[in-house]
């Protein structure tokens, strides 16, 4: 009896979470579709975003994301590999590194925004630019990405490491051809978390990539990210709600698309590692 009750309780929890998600998505979908049209994607915003489209904002968002991912991915993988494979001899330093990463993962994004503004925009002289914004986001997604990849690498059975050693594989080759492909699901998860967090980020970008809604010509131009646009429309622009919903719809679709793309790229890459070379 108690068991059955417990089972119901748990499935009730699951149903609640799923229905909440469906509610949010349904709301965005229903309200967003009303304002959405294909030209919405390809025109410039007019009247503070109430009419017109989001073309420059989409381009800026993609710029910022690419810069963030290109910076964070290799760096993050490097740190993760070091922590799980090479840090054994330096316990103290690697422990400090882990704690630092965990603390950084919990730092609110506005703090990254202020740091990015002080360091990239002012100290390095990048100003309000897509580059400042992308680098700030890279810093922001690094900790979670590193820790996810590291735990994925650690979870790889030691038999595999020994097997590689027994076959006389160099350590670098073992990591490249065996460990990283084996940790693929974790790397994928880290990527999904990173992309989600970066695409939906507002606070860190207001002070770094900025508010300008013109089509960016170079990564040194200021550009408004999609999340900043949605925030502005719903908070500062009277009568901007319907455009905000349509932009939110685009944002949700964009995150799904980017995650699918990232996963397939990852799959592609690892297949080569394992089978071709």
């Amino acid at each position: 009896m108690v068991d059955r009750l417990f089972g119901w309780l748990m499935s009730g929890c699951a149903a609640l979470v799923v229905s909440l998600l469906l509610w949010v998505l349904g709301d965005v979908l229903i309200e967003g579709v009303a304002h959405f049209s294909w030209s919405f994607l390809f025109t410039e915003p007019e009247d503070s975003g109430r009419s017109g489209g989001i073309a420059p904002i989409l381009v800026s968002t993609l710029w910022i994301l690419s810069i963030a991912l290109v910076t964070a991915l290799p760096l993050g993988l490097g740190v993760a590999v070091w922590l799980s494979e090479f840090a054994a001899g330096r316990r103290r330093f690697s422990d400090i590194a882990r704690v630092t990463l965990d603390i950084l993962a919990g730092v609110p994004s506005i703090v990254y925004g202020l740091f990015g503004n002080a360091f990239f925009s002012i100290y390095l002289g990048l100003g309000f630019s897509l580059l400042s914004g992308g680098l700030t986001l890279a810093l922001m997604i690094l900790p979670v990405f590193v820790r996810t990849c590291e735990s994925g690498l650690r979870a790889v059975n030691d038999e595999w490491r020994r097997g590689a050693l027994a076959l006389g594989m160099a350590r670098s080759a073992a990591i490249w051809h065996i460990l990283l492909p084996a940790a693929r699901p974790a790397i994928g998860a880290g990527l999904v978390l990173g992309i989600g967090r970066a695409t939906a980020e507002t606070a860190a970008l207001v002070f770094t990539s900025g508010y300008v809604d013109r089509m960016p010509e170079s990564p040194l131009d200021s550009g408004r990210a999609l999340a900043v646009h949605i925030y502005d429309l719903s908070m500062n622009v009277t009568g901007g709600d319907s455009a905000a919903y349509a932009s939110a719809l685009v944002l949700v679709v964009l995150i799904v698309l980017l995650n699918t793309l990232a996963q397939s790229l990852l799959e592609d890459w690892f297949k080569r590692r394992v089978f071709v070379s």
Partner: protein
Amino acid sequence: MLRIFIRLLLLMYVLASASVVQASGGRLTLTGSSTIAPLILEVAKRFESQHPGVRINVQTGGSSRGINDVRLGLADIGMVSRALKASEKDLSAYLIARDGIGIITHKNNPVRNLTGDQIVGIYSGKIRNWEEVGGSNLPITVINKAEGRSTLELFLQHFSLRNSQINAQVVIGDNQQGIKSVSAIAGAIGYVSIGTAEYEENHGTPIKLISMEGEIPTSENVAKGRYQFSRQLNLVVRNTPVGLAKEFIAFAQSDAVKDIIEAQFFVAP
């Protein structure tokens, strides 16, 4: 597919480093109040279209950021959604628009006017029923703005209140949220930007702007100075503006942007 992707990213990086050396022509940077930013962005677009080659970058972050950035020379012009304080006399302000703040209630509430004392009484929790101010027997739901909002600062200053004295049932963020709360609660009272409230009233949202001390809250009365409870929207600079900054401020104060100011639900001075 992977190779194409990597090449694209490399190309982006090269472009990024190449443009570092690019010289910039007529550029102007503005930072500050998020209330003013959407308005100035539209003004800037019109200015740019009349001055080819000129680039005006508008950034937000709040009024105090605008003041800070102007002082540090990080921005040419700051946007400040209030009058300058005594400690800010090193800057000069140029009024571009006003934003009136009106008391709103639910549409079905029969009360048409409140005195300043009654509003203070309601917000400090001494008056709890609409009956006490000439309305029907209905408990009052007080809606206040969250800490840090400039409308809250203005409200407290106007009625000489401290935020700790206010006894609110609902605390909200922006104007839109205030309007949604008031339209959903029959006994609610709140305060929002008049332009926003007028827009919502005309679009069928069940809210109503009510008079204060007999002053009727309309955009027109704000413009003519017949409604006291309003805030200034200013552009501020450190020294006497020259060149492009001077031109832009003059443009933002001219009749050429009146329609933009009205489209953003503010009042041209």
